[in-house]
């Protein structure tokens, strides 16, 4: 589909806007809120961009689409992107959408799990082949078996021993509604903490650095405002695009993003909206290399170039 999903009416009498497409990873939801905020507030337009947001879904294959040039930007985790780059898919991380990934594991309070170590021998519903499982097994010296993730929750509800991969901003809300008492562990808590980022293709970034910079600046502005300002208009769009996104749920999700400082990170540690710490990313690449999921060795420079971040968020050259 190429109908504009969420473009504000074009302001008259200015120089023509550059059309670009942002492909999200799922149907419209608060985890995409900052982009919608930037659209409705006209932040993209202010920097000369006409951004169309295309919703994702279970099979949106955003990495391939971006690499093929079918869309200019998409969002995902740095570990995914590192794996893609390792397989010869030329992608370029631009800026962080979330400092901490909302992915977590969810289990019942009655399930007798206190930490990752307790998962030994358990069955976990997760995406087969996911890197974090291998890391977890290695790090804690445990062994788990994997049931493919089916996006459903009924099996969790039916089985008090069930453990399931989830978004901390999502699933716990629904199972709690049904009377379960879910507990969660953020995956980042086990020392594996990929960024959630927006990315583009290397070719696009090389050819259009100004556009990438403009998009990034406007997106950060949108996100900052979405998390801490008035997000009513963005939420209205999200609700209209995905009827499942009722206000209570959005409130819950945004609340979780705030509570766990997913977007803003911890200012005490020098984290900020959009910021990427090259050292942390490099550390992540080392972890991934250690478990052998990268096809070819991936260096930091292969996936990330700080030049597209706003001035203030770029790492000091000295620090490198």
């Amino acid at each position, binding site marked *: *589909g190429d109908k504009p999903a969420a473009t504000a009416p074009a302001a008259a009498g200015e120089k023509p806007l550059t059309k670009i497409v942002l492909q999200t990873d799922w149907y419209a939801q608060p985890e995409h809120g900052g982009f919608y905020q930037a659209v409705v507030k006209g932040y993209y337009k202010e920097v000369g961009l006409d951004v169309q947001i295309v919703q994702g879904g279970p099979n949106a294959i955003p990495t391939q689409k971006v690499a093929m040039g079918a869309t200019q930007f998409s969002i995902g985790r740095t570990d995914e992107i590192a794996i893609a780059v390792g397989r010869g898919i030329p992608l370029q991380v631009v800026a962080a959408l979330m400092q901490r990934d909302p992915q977590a594991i969810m289990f019942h309070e009655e399930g007798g799990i206190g930490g990752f170590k307790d998962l030994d021998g358990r069955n976990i519903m997760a995406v087969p082949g996911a890197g974090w499982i291998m890391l977890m097994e290695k790090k804690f010296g445990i062994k788990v078996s994997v049931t493919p993730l089916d996006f459903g929750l009924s099996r969790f509800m039916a089985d008090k021993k069930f453990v399931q991969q989830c978004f901390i901003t999502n699933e716990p809300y629904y199972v709690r509604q049904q009377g379960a008492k879910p507990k969660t562990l953020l995956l980042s808590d086990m020392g594996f903490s990929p960024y959630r980022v927006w990315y583009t293709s290397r070719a696009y970034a090389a050819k259009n650095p100004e556009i990438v910079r403009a998009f990034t600046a406007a997106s950060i502005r949108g996100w900052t405002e979405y998390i801490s300002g008035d997000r009513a208009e963005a939420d209205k769009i999200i609700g209209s695009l995905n009827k499942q996104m009722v206000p209570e749920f959005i409130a819950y999700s945004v609340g979780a993003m705030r509570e766990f400082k997913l977007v803003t990170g911890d200012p005490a540690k020098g984290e900020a909206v959009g910021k990427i710490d090259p050292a942390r990313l490099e550390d992540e690449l080392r972890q991934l290399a250690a478990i052998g999921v990268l096809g070819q060795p991936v260096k930091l420079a292969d996936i990330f170039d700080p030049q597209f971040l706003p001035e203030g968020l770029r790492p000091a050259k000295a620090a490198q």
Partner: protein
Amino acid sequence: MKSTRLMAWLQPAITGLALIGLWYAVKAGFKIPTFVLPSPGEIAQAAWDERGPLLSAAMVTVRGALLGFFAAVSVGFLLAMALGFSPRIKASFYPYILILQMMPVTILAPVFVLWLGQGLPSIVAITFMIGFFPVVANTTMGFVSVDRNLRELFLMCKATRAQEVRYLRIPGAMPYFLTGMKIAGTLAPIGAIVGDFLAGSAENGVGGIGFMTIAYFSQLKTPALFATGLVACVMGFLFVGGVNWLHWRLLHSWHDSMVKKE
């Protein structure tokens, strides 16, 4: 006459009631919670509550299912005709059609999405992939099962290959073709739902039934989830009803499957 008409409705209605009773009994007996298996009543209630989104989702899916169904039936039929045309063509291509059929659609879906884009075209392609083989397999079998005596008649008529196909093989294969079509009909809504799942796009907030399925599934709205199944069934029945009507139209005057005593 009237009473057999009535019976034709009564029979399945009685079974239906019995099955619903059984459903309630099993649910109660095994203490199956609603979030695993809702009762028929809960499903009906959910279907009613969600009628708005379900209806607009159904419209989206019906479109994909219809187009995919027609693609599956017509391409399948043409393919079978080509295969039936000569044993040579059959030997050359049948294995590859089998490969296409046996390739899990999940693997091909990304290729479709990239080539055709997310949304209707890909959904139609996936529906097609799921439904075309039963048509091909049945029609091909029908083509090769032609009465050998009639084949000799056509030889005596100096019929061209094309005439033989048109006047002998196609009518003779009709019962088989229609059976394949019936199977394709039951698969079309499923195909469109899977397609929605694998390649759908919820433009303007209106996704198909597959989208609703994921949504309800991931939100633990199990009765509504089963209601999407209900909608899928209703769609399937419309397809099968259409094929049955065609079956009757084409065969009632001559085929053994359709003759009543006298």
